[in-house]
């Protein structure tokens, strides 16, 4: 047995040991997440198994399950990271908008550009979001709601600037803008529309949806 002096124990145990364990756990999580992201991207959500993910991360399935309850838990974590990154990118894009219409258009385009390189993840996200079990959880995540709120924030700001009328029905209108943003994905990504074509379409859609709020 290795001899440990009392002073060593005193120094190591209370402070460094838990930190090291926490760090190791954090590193394991990150490794699993990176492997899962890669496999979901290459093989799709249905195609990737926990066993494959564990192997790709160079660890046992037990080690994966110690950190994540199941595949959907892993997927939600990845989606949350992406949605946070995308929300930030959209917010940056919106600031450069000349008016509410332009800001919304920039938000739409930031989303389509972001997912052009994450096709499988986008497909999986849509699939899970309409799922009876996975849907409510995915849609209820704080990163999902923060993402949706972005659309409402733009309209509220436009009402404050006097660009849109006070009776703009911000809640319904922002919800519809969000739905429209999502509904373009089959064209945006799956049918391979050019970003220019998408932009023209999105601009028209935004104009139609804002029309009533401008008149008031």
């Amino acid at each position, binding site marked *: 047995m290795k001899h440990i002096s009392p002073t060593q124990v005193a120094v190591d145990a209370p402070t460094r040991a838990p930190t090291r364990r926490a760090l190791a756990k954090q590193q394991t999580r990150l490794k699993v997440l990176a492997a899962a992201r890669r496999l979901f991207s290459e093989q799709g959500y249905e195609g990737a198994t926990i066993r494959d993910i564990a192997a790709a991360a160079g660890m046992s399935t037990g080690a994966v399950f110690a950190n994540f309850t199941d595949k959907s838990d892993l997927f939600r974590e990845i989606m949350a990271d992406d949605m946070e990154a995308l929300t930030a990118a959209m917010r940056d894009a919106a600031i450069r908008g000349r008016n509410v219409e332009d800001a919304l258009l920039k938000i739409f385009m930031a989303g389509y550009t972001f997912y052009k390189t994450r096709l499988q993840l*986008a*497909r999986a996200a849509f699939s899970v979001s309409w799922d009876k079990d996975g849907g409510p959880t995915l*849609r209820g995540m704080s990163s999902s709601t923060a993402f949706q709120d972005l659309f409402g924030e733009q309209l509220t700001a436009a009402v404050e600037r006097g660009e849109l009328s006070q009776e703009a029905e911000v809640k319904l209108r922002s919800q*519809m803008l969000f*739905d429209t943003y999502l509904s373009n994905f089959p064209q945006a990504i799956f049918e391979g529309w050019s970003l220019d074509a998408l932009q023209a379409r999105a601009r028209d*859609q935004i*104009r*139609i*949806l804002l029309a009533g709020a401008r008149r008031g």
Partner: protein
Amino acid sequence: MNDADLGSPAQPVPARQSQKEATRQRVIAAARELFDSHGYQGTTIREIARHAGISVGSVFTTFASKGEILSEVMQARLEPLYAEIDRVMPHVRGSTADRLRTMFAVHFEFEAQHVRLFMSHIAAAYDWTLPPGARPYGRTPGLQEVIRDVLVKGQAAGDVRPDIDLQEVVDLLLSAYAWTYRLVITREADAKSLIKVMDRQIGLIAEGFAPRN
């Protein structure tokens, strides 16, 4: 091979065809139930085969993917709906927005009977690995044609701007209609509350297609 076979070359083919048709119908019936209870993601070809009591291989001799099976299920299901809509719509009076509201209300009431099935149909629209032959939500011609008809009549009545891109309005209405079903997932909304939300959305889109003064 014997003489009987040579003498009646037409016979074996129909027999095989009717067997193939019977398999098809069994697959479609099994798939309809599974998509309605497990959703699009939760349903696999293997389960459909098991539920239909046939081998996975037999399913694949008739259908290339689960999306294609779902397309067949929906096509069979939506035919009577559009027959009904075609019968009713010419008699519906009122503004373009009101005629759209009536038309969508009929849809919500119809789909409410098997709402998970319809949501599977919507989910399939976001599965771009589907073969071109599959017709998920948005690629079925029926609904698009009905909406377009109402809008064209609206243009004739001076209710809809003549210079608007009709396809864009059709797409906006399709998107609003589909995503209203989200409320079934988040709030377990029934047909009545879905119709209420859709009525407001149609009002908002109508502001966008109304002629400019």
